[in-house]
């Protein structure tokens, strides 16, 4: 019995750490609607700064002072980030801020290695809380007890702040309706900045409090960020009490789950999230999200198919790309094939995101299923390449049929999170089912047959399929189906009132996107000759998201350019420098600030503005000469 009590308390201690990070994320999202991917980075910075400060100041006062000072310093960094970066991009489409904070995270990961070195750092234990307390023969670390108390205390303090102060009331009002607060004449800028600072402070505090029990290193952020998102979503976005309950739920299920299923941890949070979201689409304590307001003036130019001139231009460019094997080497062709594959992958997600308005955070699942489909077809069934290639889209399709059915019942961030959960569930099955999939060691020897083996043949194959896929998706976008999909995105109310079953349309779009991603995965398996679980992983899903946003989510085919630029740049950077994350992150941040509509979106708006700006430029120069 004592064991179960102690196990429960241990679970509570884990929950407290999780809650601290999650509460900050939840507050920030609630008010600013920013999916702050950099929250983990602030958590990590908190730990690093606390490590440095605790090394300098000893004693109880020094230790606790250092923890607090570290949190405040990182909160100040957060304020700078908010003022310099985020303020510029509140008006851009939703999720674009995710891209900016993602870029920031990449940069921070490299910066901490530059500043603190690559080794794991182990900080001091907390003065006075070094030991353990005996409980009927079981030992509970006193630091755990401290955390168990701290969690509810922070929850209580936040509750007081939100209930009893004018600032708190404003924050709650803003969580419910941002525009209303703006209408009340509140200085929204400072409200957002202060909220961001509080959220970052909590993240940094959580990170700093980890140093007596964890090692500080440069991948702490990724270890925590996904779990924290999951906790926030389970609890209900913007609900701090919900985050607390979710943290306790997840931690306790883990603490007791591992007694029965020692391998459960890897998948547990995602199982919990998927089940909660299927039953309660807005999390435990969340409320139905108000339909996202479209920022006015963003898509004033309705999409149109290519004009005949543009078609000719496209054909010329295609011919040029197709002639590459006549003057480029094998490596360039190999990279070209990889880029073409990522064009397919990004285009599939883009179709879902732009026409469907459904941002999947787990799109790699279908890419990966495609890759594994091919690997199984080749290695288990011994099928020839031409047939095995079809296994890719088939697997992508099957996965999308099943998961899409549940996912499209939700919308917005909840949709994103459920897709993430499904992807992570598939990933952990593949990762753990070593007998079938080889687990982490993957499936080797999936090389193309002779007819496609040479670099030029494989490049042509990939290019041809990419062009077919992109053309097909464009055709679908301008078909009645594509319009029904856009209609569902624009106005579910109207769509239903003109006889359209929106969920079925969205489900079908999800299946199309999954199938197409499967095509990309199939080619990818053959390109690399092997398949590993990371084709299903979160980083790949994030890559696809970045490609889409970089190209411009409000364009018809922006993802193509996004995929080419991002993939080429990252391959080149990885080849040229070890600080590729720093450079790539900086590039992304720059793009977000300079071209908030994405590359293609920006080109388009310049194109549409051109006549007048040209005129202005001419007029301007005339005036100058006149002077």
């Amino acid at each position, binding site marked *: 019995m004592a064991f179960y009590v102690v*196990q429960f308390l241990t679970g509570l201690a884990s929950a407290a750490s999780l809650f601290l990070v999650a509460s900050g994320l939840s507050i920030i999202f609630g008010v600013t609607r920013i999916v702050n991917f950099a929250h983990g980075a602030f958590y990590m910075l908190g730990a690093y700064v606390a490590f440095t400060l605790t090394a300098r100041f000893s004693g109880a006062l020094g230790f606790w002072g250092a923890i607090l000072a570290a949190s405040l310093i990182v909160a100040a960094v957060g304020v700078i980030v908010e003022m310099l970066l985020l303020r510029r991009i509140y008006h851009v489409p939703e999720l674009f801020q995710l891209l900016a904070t993602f870029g920031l995270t990449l940069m921070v990961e490299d910066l901490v290695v530059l500043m603190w070195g690559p080794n794991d750092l182990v900080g001091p234990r907390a003065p006075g809380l070094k030991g353990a307390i005996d409980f009927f023969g079981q030992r509970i*670390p006193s630091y755990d007890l401290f955390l168990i108390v701290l969690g509810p205390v922070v929850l209580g303090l936040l509750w007081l702040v939100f209930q009893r102060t004018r600032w708190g009331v404003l924050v709650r009002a803003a969580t419910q309706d941002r525009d209303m607060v703006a209408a009340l004449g509140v200085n929204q800028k400072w409200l957002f900045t202060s909220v961001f600072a509080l959220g970052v402070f909590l993240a940094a505090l959580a990170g700093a409090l980890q140093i007596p029990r964890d090692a500080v290193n440069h991948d702490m952020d990724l270890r925590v960020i996904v779990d924290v998102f999951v906790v926030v979503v389970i609890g209900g976005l913007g609900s701090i009490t919900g985050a607390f309950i979710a943290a306790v739920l997840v931690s306790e299920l883990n603490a007791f789950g591992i007694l029965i299923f020692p391998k459960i941890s890897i998948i547990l949070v995602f199982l919990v999230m998927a089940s909660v979201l299927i039953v309660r689409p807005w999390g435990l304590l969340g409320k139905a999200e108000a339909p996202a307001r479209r920022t006015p003036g963003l898509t004033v130019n309705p999409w149109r198919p290519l004009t005949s001139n543009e078609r000719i*231009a496209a054909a010329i460019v295609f011919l040029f*790309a197709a002639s590459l094997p006549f003057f480029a*080497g094998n490596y360039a*062709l190999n990279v070209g094939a990889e880029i073409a594959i990522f064009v397919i992958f990004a285009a599939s997600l883009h179709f879902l995101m732009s026409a469907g308005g459904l941002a999947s955070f787990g799109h790699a699942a279908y890419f990966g299923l495609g890759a594994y489909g091919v690997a199984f077809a080749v290695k288990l069934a011994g099928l020839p390449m031409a047939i095995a290639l079809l296994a890719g889209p088939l697997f992508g399709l099957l996965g999308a049929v099943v998961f899409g059915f549940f996912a499209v019942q939700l919308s917005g961030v909840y949709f994103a999170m459920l897709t993430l959960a499904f992807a992570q569930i598939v990933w952990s099955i593949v*990762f753990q089912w*070593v007998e079938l999939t080889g687990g982490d060691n993957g499936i080797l020897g999936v090389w193309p047959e002779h007819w496609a083996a040479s670099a030029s043949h494989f490049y042509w194959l990939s290019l041809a399929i990419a062009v077919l896929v992109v053309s097909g998706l464009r055709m679908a976008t301008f078909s009645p189906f594509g319009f029904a999909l856009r209609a569902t995105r624009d106005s579910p109310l109207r769509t239903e009132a003109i006889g359209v079953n929106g969920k079925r349309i969205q489900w079908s779009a999800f299946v199309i996107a999954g199938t197409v991603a499967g095509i990309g995965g199939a080619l990818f398996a053959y390109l690399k000759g092997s398949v590993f679980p990371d084709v299903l992983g979160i980083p790949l899903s994030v890559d696809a998201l970045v490609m889409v946003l970089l190209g411009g989510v409000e364009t018809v085919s922006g993802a*193509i350019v996004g995929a080419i630029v991002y993939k080429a740049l990252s391959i080149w950077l990885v080849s040229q420098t070890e600080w590729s994350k720093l450079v790539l992150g900086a590039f992304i941040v720059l793009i977000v600030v300079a071209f908030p509509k994405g590359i293609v979106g920006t080109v388009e708006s310049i194109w549409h503005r051109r006549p007048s700006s040209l005129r202005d430029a001419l007029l301007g120069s005339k005036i100058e000469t006149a002077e």
Partner: protein
Amino acid sequence: MQGRVLLGATLALTLMGFAPSAFAQSGGEIKIGEINSYSLLPAFTEPYRKGWQLAVEEVNAAGGVNGKKLVVISKDDGGKPAEAQTAANELVSSENVSMLVGTFLSNIGLAVSDFAKQKKVFFLASEPLTDAITWQKGNRYTFRLRPSNYMQAAMLVDAAAKLPAKRWATIAPNYEYGQSAVAVFKKLMSEKRPDIQWVEAQWPPLGKIDAGPVVQAVAQANPDAILNVEFGGDLVKLVREGNTRGLFKGREVVSFLTGEPEYLDPLKDETPEGWIVTGYPWYSIKTPEHAAFLKAYQAKYNDYPRLGSIVGYETIKAAAAILAKANSTDPDKMIAAAEGLSLPSPFGEITFRKIDHQSTLGAFVGKTALKDGKGIMVDSVYRKGSDYQPSDAEVEKMRPKD
């Protein structure tokens, strides 16, 4: 809008940037392509890089390889097999390297070894531990330097079997390496000690251990001894929780790799004492070969070597020896030269086994101890890799025929 226009244009223009930089290998050089997870795992790959850079210097100072200057072109793989493949492709297609070396993670080692097999390129895997790379998924183009998972397990079992402990628990990260480390250890251990029981197995996810509940769960099973396969940040958390909760008190712990400075040093004054570990006690190895290496390394870097430094150093030394003996960059000739090749190393002479292309580089087995607030290995003994192998018949059964 102009999607396809931009597609083609960007694609084509981009690819111009990937055109080969040098068309032919200049006459006086031999190029080796090197790949490792520099950005993902700098703690391990930095010392490794210092090691191979030292070796390149030494090889060239001694006149290079058959009179040609040795050049290493190094690429980062970002910790992803697919990116390692791209890098391998660049090195082979664009840089025209004579052989590939490197890799740390098992899956990346396997990916590159499969690439080597497909493209018929010589590959010397330096650090990946997985047994598959030389056995189940072995191929004639791939050699491996570091003692494998099996070898490390066998060395530990040697010591563990002598313990009186009968009830064993295991803690291992939940992925292929953790699973196979536990599987091999259990198999070898059960052969020597049919009387032991496996009472608990914990499988926390890699990099995300929730150490409190795990420690608690293991303690509840009340084992006499614990096998640990955790490493890195997970190990730190496990050790700290375990120390506080008294998990290791009165229990024997046998732990993979923990004696390597990469894993031992971060534990500082929390290093648990008396764990039986494999590792690299650079401070207590007194052989002349090692002394020479240590002196050169410290002189160049003003830092002590880690195990990665040894592996990096010996990788290039071995590559140079293979190239010198083959006197050709033809893969078949290099394979012929490498099979059975013996060469010196800081740990003594090593040989690349003909039967499975595994080197006989060994490891040190000893016990952890605390000295001046730092973790060290004491009572360490060098175990030769050649002594910890399954029978040739078993190896032949596992390894696919070429």
